[in-house]
């Protein structure tokens, strides 16, 4: 008997458990998208109005899709950044600080260098991304060189970031009025503002990094088995450092889109990004213990969270119910997209 014939090859089943779990987040998203119009239909039906399910839905419309995408775009960028970190099995909680600093630095530079994209002020865009990357780099250095677990290192770096943004602005908010920059929001192609396309391009870039570059694949290697990767000759520290730097750059892109959406850069620009982005990543099916998931999962996760938020207002849920409903739906989404058989225990 020969080695090849003995160990043989296993055929993968078409509808394996892995596959079902893999597509569960998308399924959840679709269900949610179909669910909210159902409530609208019920409401109108009870009032005795004509309402064709989906067709007459205000939620299920292109205009609302655009609104959801607008609110999702900055969060998506931040969530993509943290996705890389979570794939490595680490966590990054510094996004609120980094986003604020990048937004503020961008606004200051943009205004100082001309205040319109048609001048040298366009340089403020790459400068902001560089600043984000630098903040991520420092975050990574603190984590790796001081051997502080990423949770604590990034949490503390988040404080530093927010503090730095406050120091820079002294509490002022900076308006970015340039109509060309603001066309991110105001200019629409095929019903969707430019910022949606920008976000999509960066999503593709992230996907490219994840699937076609050594760095991206190394994230998975580190997340799948850090010590093993190290033993295979991988410079794990370098991969980690690059990961945090890359995440910082994506946080910066998120900051730019956030400024583009509101037209204001301030210390509070970064608020709320932490829990939203991490929740989105997890809801999308990227496991907190690393090695599984990716940027498409994150897209689905971010959309789930934003669809829930938008849908709850659209169907007229009272304010106080919304938090709890979000909580319950998040649990449901994570439960459905976790392959329970593959994890021995969860903490």
């Amino acid at each position, binding site marked *: 008997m020969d080695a090849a014939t003995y160990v043989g090859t296993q055929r993968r089943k078409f509808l394996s458990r892995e596959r079902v779990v893999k597509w569960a987040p998308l399924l959840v998203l679709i269900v949610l998208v179909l669910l909210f119009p159902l409530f609208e239909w019920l409401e109108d039906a009870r009032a005795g109005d004509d309402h064709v399910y989906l067709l007459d839905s205000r*939620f299920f419309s292109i205009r609302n899709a655009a609104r959801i995408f607008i609110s999702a775009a900055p969060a998506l960028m931040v969530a993509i950044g943290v996705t890389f970190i979570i794939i490595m099995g680490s966590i990054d909680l510094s996004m609120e600080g980094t986003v604020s600093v990048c937004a503020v630095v961008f606004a200051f530079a943009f205004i100082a260098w001309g205040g319109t994209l048609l001048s040298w002020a366009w340089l403020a865009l790459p400068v902001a991304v560089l600043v984000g990357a630098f903040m991520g780099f420092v975050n990574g250095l603190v984590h790796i060189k001081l051997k502080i677990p990423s949770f604590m290192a990034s949490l503390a770096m988040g404080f530093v970031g927010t503090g730095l943004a406050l120091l820079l602005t002294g509490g002022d*908010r900076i*308006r970015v009025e340039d109509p060309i920059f603001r066309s991110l929001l105001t200019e629409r192609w095929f019903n969707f503002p430019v910022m949606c396309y920008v976000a999509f391009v960066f999503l593709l870039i992230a996907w490219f990094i994840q699937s076609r570059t050594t760095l991206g694949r190394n994230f998975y290697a580190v997340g799948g088995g850090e010590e093993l990767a190290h033993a295979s000759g991988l410079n794990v520290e370098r991969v980690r450092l690059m990961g945090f730097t890359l995440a910082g750059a994506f946080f910066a892109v998120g900051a730019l889109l956030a400024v583009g959406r509101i*037209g204001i850069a301030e210390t*509070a620009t970064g608020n709320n990004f932490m829990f939203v982005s991490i929740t989105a990543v997890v809801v999308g099916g990227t496991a907190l213990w690393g090695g599984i998931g990716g940027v498409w999962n994150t897209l689905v996760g971010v959309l789930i969270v934003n669809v829930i*938020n*938008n849908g709850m207002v*659209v169907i007229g849920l009272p304010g106080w119910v919304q938090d709890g409903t979000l909580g319950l739906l998040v649990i449901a989404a994570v439960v459905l997209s976790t392959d329970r058989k593959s994890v021995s225990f969860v903490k």
Partner: protein
Amino acid sequence: MSFIKKFIDQEKVNRRDLLLASAYGMGGVAAAGLLGPGMARAAIADPTVAWSYRNRTNPYWNEIVSGGEAFVESLGKSKEFLTHLINEGSSEKSLADVKALLSKTNGDLALAIDTNDAPNARPVVEACAEAGAYVSTLWNKTDDLHPWDFGDNYVSHMTWSDEGPAEQTARILLEAMGGKGGVVHLGGIASNNPAIERLNGLKNALVDYPDVELLDAQPADWDTQKANQVMSSFLTRYGDEITGVHCANDTIAYGVLEALRAEGIEGMPIVSYDGNPQAVELVAAGEILATVFTNPHWGGGITASLAYHAATGAFKPSEEPPEHREFYGPTIFITPEDAAEFKANYIENVPTYDWTDFWGPSNGQIQYG
């Protein structure tokens, strides 16, 4: 007031303090003796002046701070003389910071404070009275807490009755809507007093406009980004039914404006509150119909000034009438017609105030309903 009566009153106050305060168990007269002057302390020659507020990300608080700084400069000191305590929206930090500062200054403190949340006012005031410091509060306090229950140490409380002004801006809005259509309200943090009052203002106005429907009211937590998202969801739910927007403050209005801009909607009637410089610009440009200026610069300065002058003994709060201890702050309406004038008077040239004219611009004693 006779000497005897005064003494008895003083004793009452002390006993009440003994009951209410005294987390250290050193309340009342005994503590006063032990710690130094305490309640008996008449005057502090050179107290530390501090302002405790929520954060620096809201222009409103920056205005407050600028007032506080203007006041210390009027004393011939540098801006840096003013100590800042920022609570970041945490009542726990607010109280802890005050306690630390009291301990550091040994009670030689004149404190102006917004306690972040109404319930937090009591422990803050009690701690100050305990240490013999002088405190003036702004905005948040519970209805059962009064300066006159604490002798001289709780100098004053200033707040704004937002219901009336909010009602007036609402009327401007409803008129602009032609007295019909649908209005949405984006509120502050739901449990904050101003948020409640401003919504009530709108509701009061709506009584006279039966053809206008209040489509929805959702909290936007004073936050531009949240307001932006809530507004775009409103647009989905109500679409063209929305013909006017009532915002609880200016930062919310910014988010609303951007949500409308994203949809290419122009000329939607909007009113807001606070009168931040940026909002005034927007009023001048006609993008916002009206906002209410509460003169935070003056509020910030005069609150610190009251605490300071009480501390130095320049006036004795317990001898002042109730309307000098609990009073409403000033409100100024800003509409497109007077925006330019307002801008010239209040923003481009910050007026120089007489910080010893404590109650000149104030608006009467606080009424509890």
